[in-house]
């Protein structure tokens, strides 16, 4: 159905895809796995017409395809289901199913036909959903299923699902996987992307592993004799080996000789619904504690609760033995707990304001003269001091934050907390979207912050980063801490990934 020949794509500074060739046949589900940044999303964007490849050839349904836009790809029969839902919550299921153009007769809704067709589509997926129910009243799983039905209404020849189960409960996820198999049985091709290996095992006929923009492994699970829906078991260990690879290509600054001191931050039984369950750990003075896990494992929620950004259901946080009342980020910041949020542009910076204003925002009380007047000289001096130390590249301190590169934006946020004199720094994906050069500088700063006796919590989806930078690593899976790695420098990445994927419970001799 779909054939990719030597597709390549590069962005400034990154080769996102390097000559990837793939084949997906009719009636087949291809599982696509790989770590963050391996090139999965780029591949999907190219196949769905959102981006054009720099090189290579796409064949779809036997002819060469060069889609100019997602709309064109959709017309040719490629449907994409994203992690985020695209339903209008106020409309009914039926109205959502036929929301796009082309279903009406000269602009007049064909209600009877729609009702019949909606029942047929929902029936195909064996869904017991009332076509007249409002989408806002449906569970997330049901909504995801409606999303698939909506895609099926177009009778696609290729269905692409990008992390479709991220928001679903296990039962809903299982139902969704059945539906994907059903789609394949009816002769369409499907590409299924997921971090969850058990889902891949349940749904995929073949599995392709991407790493650093290359197709490193392809596993065919078809029974040699052609046994219908029966497939060979998946060798998950081999898959994980392939995903992690052996190349520790990244360089990390050396761990400075330092004394890791007393526990500074203690987290006891922290919980948030089903997303974080009874998480306890401590971070010592001068320690970088890594938090590894898959997307959605609850790591970000842990950091947000500690920093007061999100309310917890239970548990407590102690700083230097004193229990903290974390009702707002303001209080956390006052106690010296500072967060580098994962979404730098959406949560870290006020993009319309200058770099200096963003630096000063939580520190204005330090530059206060009288009656809330800001001492701009002192503010400017403090900023230029950190600007020099962190090597923040600006045309002027007044340059708008929106126009800074990712690395410089992150440095502004780091400078802000260093000026604040943070005692605990929570780094959530500190190098996401940052190029290699600036990355190293940020690594250095994380080490340096720790060597000054502060405590650092490091969350990263890049395993090499967590292992290379942390003094100790905790692994989370589905809201719980499932393992502790005491010596990350010599740990086996595949083993960590197995814990994160929920296959193993702990790693090596240093069981928590």
């Amino acid at each position, binding site marked *: 159905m779909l054939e990719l020949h030597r597709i390549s794509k590069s962005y*400034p500074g990154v080769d996102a895809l390097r000559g990837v060739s793939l084949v997906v046949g009719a009636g087949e589900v291809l599982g696509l796995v790989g770590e963050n940044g391996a090139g999965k999303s780029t591949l999907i964007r190219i196949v769905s017409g959102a981006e054009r490849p720099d090189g290579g050839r796409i064949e779809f349904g036997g002819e060469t395809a060069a889609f100019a836009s997602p709309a064109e790809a959709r017309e040719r029969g490629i449907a994409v289901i994203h992690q985020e839902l695209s339903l209008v919550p106020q409309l009914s299921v039926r109205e959502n199913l036929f929301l796009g153009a082309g279903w009406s007769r000269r602009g007049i809704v064909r209600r009877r036909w729609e009702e019949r067709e909606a029942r047929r589509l929902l029936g195909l997926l064996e869904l017991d959903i009332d076509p007249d129910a409002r989408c806002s009243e449906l569970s997330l799983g049901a909504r995801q299923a409606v999303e698939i039905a909506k895609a099926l209404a177009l009778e696609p020849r290729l269905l692409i699902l990008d992390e479709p189960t991220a928001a679903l409960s296990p039962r809903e996820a299982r139902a969704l996987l059945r539906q994907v198999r059903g789609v394949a049985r009816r002769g369409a091709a499907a590409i299924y992307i997921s971090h969850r290996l058990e889902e891949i095992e349940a749904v995929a006929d073949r599995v392709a592993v991407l790493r650093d923009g290359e197709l490193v492994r392809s596993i065919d699970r078809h029974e040699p004799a052609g046994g219908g829906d029966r497939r060979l078991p998946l060798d998950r260990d081999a898959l994980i080996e392939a995903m992690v690879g052996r190349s520790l290509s990244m360089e990390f600054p050396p761990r400075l000789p330092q004394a890791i001191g007393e526990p500074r931050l203690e987290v006891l039984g922290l919980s948030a619904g089903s997303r974080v369950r009874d998480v306890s750990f401590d971070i010592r003075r001068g320690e970088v504690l890594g938090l590894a896990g898959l997307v959605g494992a609850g790591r970000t929620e842990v950091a947000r609760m500690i*920093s007061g*950004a999100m309310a917890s259901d239970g548990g407590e946080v102690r700083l230097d033995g004193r229990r903290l009342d974390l009702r*707002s*980020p*303001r209080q956390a*910041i*006052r106690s010296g707990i500072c*967060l580098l*949020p994962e979404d730098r542009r*959406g*949560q*870290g*910076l*006020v*993009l*319309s*304001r200058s770099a200096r*204003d963003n630096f*000063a*925002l*939580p520190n*204005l*009380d330090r530059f*206060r003269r009288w*009656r*809330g*007047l*800001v001492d*701009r000289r002192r503010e400017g001096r403090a900023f230029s001091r950190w600007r020099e130390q962190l090597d923040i*590249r600006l*045309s002027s301190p007044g340059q708008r934050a929106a*126009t800074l*590169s990712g*690395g*410089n934006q992150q440095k502004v946020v780091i400078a*802000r907390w260093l000026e604040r004199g943070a005692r605990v720094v929570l780094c959530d994906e500190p190098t996401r979207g940052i*190029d290699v*050069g*600036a990355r190293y*500088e940020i690594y250095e700063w994380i080490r340096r912050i720790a060597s000054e006796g502060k405590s650092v919590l490091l969350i990263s989806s890049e395993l090499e980063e967590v292992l290379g930078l942390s003094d100790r690593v905790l692994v989370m899976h589905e809201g719980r801490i499932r393992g502790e790695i005491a010596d990350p420098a010599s740990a086996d990445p595949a083993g960590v990934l197995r814990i994160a994927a929920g296959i193993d419970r702990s790693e090596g001799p240093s069981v928590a």
Partner: protein
Amino acid sequence: MPEDVGESAAGRWRRKLLDLLSRNLSVVVLALLCLISSVATWREQNPITSRSGAAVARQVLEACPAPCSVLVVARDTEADRVFARAIEEGLDDSGVRIAGRVFGQPRDVRLELERLAGLDGSLDAIATHRIASDWGPVRSAGARVFSPRSYYWPTFLTPRNLLNVVNQNADIAIIALGMTLVILTAGIDLSVGSLLALAGVIAAVAAQEWFGGAAASPAGLLAAMLLGVAAAALGGLLSGTMVTAFRVPPFVATLGLMMLARGLALILAVGHQRRLVGGGAEGTPEAVRVDATAFAWLGNGAVLGVPNPIVLMLVLFIAAHVLMTRTMFGRYVYAVGGNVEAARLSGVPVTAVLLAVYCLCGAFTGLAGIVDASRFEGGRPNAGELYELQVIAAVVVGGASLAGGRGRIAGTLIGAMIIAVIQNGLNIAGVASYEQKVVFGALILGAVLLDRLQPKIASRRARMTRGSTPTPVQ
């Protein structure tokens, strides 16, 4: 890092100029409007002022040296009396004799001429202004008539007119300062027109009924006015509470308050009227008159020739400007408007900031309300209708973004002046009020369109800039 690699000096200057223009577009627009208004109102000027009176006196002295007797003719108005006094002062100690003075109609001139003829004194000259010099009795008196030479000058650009323009729009400008804060947080306040009326009525009722009416002391009047301002601030606080604690969209919260405050103003005015007339008389929503004359000082008095509302507006403008550019609070407002989540995670007390912003907007509106009440010597329950739209227009024309985070106090002041100048220019040019509405509508649409287009222009500019600089190597 050199910033100007691969760009010619001329190109750089052109970009800088374009940059400056687009950043200060509203100033350019205001200047253009003033120019247009000036050209359109290029008229023959015959001012009746002390200066023109002195000029006439000089003419008389040159053409008709002492001994010489002069009749001063003017109408019975304030300006004419000032004019006449200036003539007499100019002729003082020169030996020129003032034979008589007329303040009135042509008929009064005739009577005075008859009286002078009866006195057997010769009359050499009549000193008057342009209008009276055309009167029949003046022309046929047989004496030389002196009047100030007329000259050409834009009526728009006369000091009187300019002060007038600003004075009449001072209340809009004052409210617009508060509205700027609200709009900076991506909110809106529709209640300002009603709060203005409520503040005025409360101040008037308080002055009349609680602080002694005609006998009210200055302190009592001040207390009454403060009460009005406090009521409006309280109204703002109510909006702020709805917006923050109950997450009601600002549009809806302030729409509710708009009706509520208007109703309260009417009820208070009618109640006052009933108490005035007594018994079960039918109350009417008339203005609540304040008898204490000092009440009118704020709206009608002047400091060094500058009307008080303008003085108040300038003081508030400077205060608001300092607040927004130099204080923590100002930074917080911009941060909340620019990215509320980033502000919260940076420790900004978002709720408190929003409450303060709505409360301040109410207080500014209250101040405008007492200016209005003072100007009309009473609280008018129907004052300020549709003001909210004019105020929002002023803020938007001044360059603030309704999406929040972008806008300046100085821009708002200029926006308010742009609207005032257009209104005034159209009035002087004799454009009817219906056509004026069309012009205003087009203006607001234009401003909003510009606001929408600005990100595109900015991104194009950024692309230009980036194109000319090598990507920073990190």
